Each structure stands twice: as structure tokens, then as C-alpha cells.
């Protein structure tokens, strides 16, 4: 779907950086699952008075982190309870970690693609997160 107006080069770069922020933060912030959320949050806060295209994509980048952060946090807490608590590694835990890796990989690739496409001025819309962004972000 096309955006309401054609963003200029400056806007595309700023919007694209919103996605890159989370990608870079994932690399830096591992294994702490909250870092990428914080990075995109502060980037969004810094650009909330920017143009509609920039705001919209910064918000989509932020919202797309929330679910994966929730899943990652559960995995993080579970791992800590195994290392420091009474829990032990079982099939359910291993399955959860593999599921986390798969979903993180999908999210990572999607974010990277979004960053590249947005840089070209294309309006990338994620499943679920785009309609959610539309609800929150008004022109």
C-alpha cells in the first residue's frame, strides 16, 4: 500500500534508522531482551514531532518489538531460574528456546528488510503491527 504522500530522502533515512536502531540494539544488547525495546522507544520519543512518515515508521518499529520482548523476557526469566533456581533443563525449555530463536530470526530479517525498503522511500507494513500503528499514529 502506498503512503499518503511521497517521503523525501531525509524522511526515508530517519524512518529507516528507526528499524536499524532495533537491529543494532539486538546485536549490542544480547542477551538482555529489553535493550532493543528501549533503543526504539527513545528513538521514537526523539522523533515524535517529526513528519508523519518518520513518526509512523518509528512507531511501527517500536510496536513490533513489544511481542518479541515479552516472549524473550519469559525465556530470559526461565533461563535465570534454571541457572540460579530450582528449575532444570527439560524438553519444554529446549523447545521454547528454539521457538524463540526462530521468531527472533524472523523478526530480525523482517526488521532488516523494512529498514532497507523504508530507506528507498517504500511504505513497509508489518502484519498486525501496521494496523496497530494506524490506530495510534494519526497524521
Amino acid at each position, binding site marked *: 500500500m502506498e503512503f499518503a504522500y511521497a517521503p523525501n530522502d531525509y524522511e526515508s533515512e530517519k524512518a529507516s534508522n528507526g528499524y536499524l536502531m532495533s537491529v543494532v540494539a539486538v546485536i549490542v544488547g544480547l542477551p538482555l531482551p529489553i535493550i532493543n525495546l528501549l533503543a526504539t522507544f527513545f528513538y521514537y520519543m526523539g522523533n515524535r514531532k517529526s513528519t508523519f512518515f518518520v513518526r509512523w515508521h518509528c512507531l511501527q518499529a517500536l510496536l513490533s518489538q513489544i511481542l518479541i520482548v515479552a516472549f524473550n523476557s519469559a525465556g530470559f526469566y526461565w533461563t535465570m531460574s534454571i541457572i540460579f533456581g530450582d528449575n532444570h533443563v527439560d524438553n519444554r525449555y529446549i523447545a521454547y528456546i528454539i521457538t524463540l530463536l*526462530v521468531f527472533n530470526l524472523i523478526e530480525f530479517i523482517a526488521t532488516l528488510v523494512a529498514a532497507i525498503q523504508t530507506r528507498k522511500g517504500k511504505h513497509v507494513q508489518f502484519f498486525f503491527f501496521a494496523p496497530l500503528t494506524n490506530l495510534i499514529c494519526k497524521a
Partner: protein
Amino acid sequence: MGKLIFQFLLIVGSFLGVWLLLSQINFLEGDDVEKFAKENEKRLGSLILKAIKSTGKETKSTELKAFVDSIGSRVCEKTEIKFDSIKVLIIRSSEVNAFALPDHHMVIYTGLLEDAKNPEEVAGVIAHEIAHMEKNHVMKKLGKEIGLSMLFAIVGGDAGGEIIKQTAHTLSSSAFDRTQEQEADDFAVDAMAKANIDPEHLANFLFRLSQQGDDMPDELVWLSTHPDSKDRATEILKKKKLLKFDTIPVLKTPWKEVQKLTGGSDDDESDD
């Protein structure tokens, strides 16, 4: 809005679905202890049992065995476990102890039968030990305490009698970890409630043992192998409140009559 909720549920559902599907795979199948258990548990069980029997302290009272079998069958009646498949050995000893061996063998000391205030308490202990068997805690404990290479030496006939005795001693006198104890308690509480036996009896037994522990620490082996008894008794009482059951006595024969069959424990017993 409806579409948004649908898409949200689809993402969460697919995450949970992938997790659930992957959980069906046995990633730990290659676990050495599990593998060893599958192939050698039977032989290991019979060797350890032989070592215990060789002490000559096995009770000869068939009547006492029948009562214990009856208690075990009752507590298992609503579970998937057939008590017939569990081989019970009653040993004359003043130690308050019971423990599970590999290959579904269970050892109960007459000291425990004498210390129990009623057959319901014994039912609780039996259910607890059955859980250790069913959840493979016994082999896991042996793998951890004795070591896999030593277990291989035992079943291969390369280990001497002393080592087998030591292995039996490990099973009778060392504790399972806290998670395993918790699992065994949960199983016991469920099995007791399903069989219309009040789980409070197991809590009472644990609680009483923890109070007696200071006066006679050497006798109460089951207490030392089952730590945190007070906390666990409290947990059992909490769980009990969530369950609905009737209370039907385990035995019709007065418990004192059954206790007389133990013959006062230890080597001086004259059974039958």
C-alpha cells in the same frame, strides 16, 4: 478492530503452536542416564536387591507383606500404576525408612511401619516412593551420585559386592533434589485423594518426623533423605484444600494388630 485482534491471536497462537509442537520432540533422548536405564535398569535392580537380601533381614511374615500390598494397591487403585508391578521388600530394621530401587523395587523398613500412626501414613509414603520410580528419579540419582561409568561396571559384573552395597546405601540414605521431592509429593497427594485417603496423613507423618528428628536423628533416616519436611507438610495441606475426596479407611484390621506383625524390628525378630 476485530481483524487486529485476529492477527494478534494468530501471532501468539503460532508462537505457542510452534512451542507445543517442538515440545513433543524428546531432545534429551540422548541423555546417557535415560539410555542406561532403558538397557540396564532390570539387571541393576536385581543386583542391588540381591545385596539387600543378602543381609538376611527380609521379613518372613507373609501376613505383613499382604497388609503392605493391600495398602499399596489401595493408594494406586485410581492411578495408571498397577501395584502388582512393584516388588516390595520389607526389611527388619528399627530405621524409619523406605526407598525405591531401580526396576520398580521398593524397600520398606519395619521401623517405618512401627512409627506410622495409621496405614494411611504408610499409604502416603508408598505413593511418594512410587512417584520416585515412575518419574525415573531413582536412575537419575544413581547417575549423579554413583556415576555412569560405575553403574556400567556394576551391571557388567566388574564391580565388587562392596560397591553394590555402597550403591544400595546411596539409594537408602541420600536425598533426592528439591524439585524431585516436590514432584513426588504432588503425585502422592493426587493418588491419595483419588483413592479417598486424606493426604493430610502424609503431612502429619512428615511433620511428626521433623519434630522427632532432634531426639532420635539416627533412626529417622527417611527424614534425613527427605529434607524440608515441615515446609513440604505445609504444601501438602495447601494442596489438599483444593481437592475433593471422601475418606475411606485403608485397612479394616486395627493398625496395632498389623504393627505386631513387624515383630519389634531388627535382627531379633521371630516372624510367622
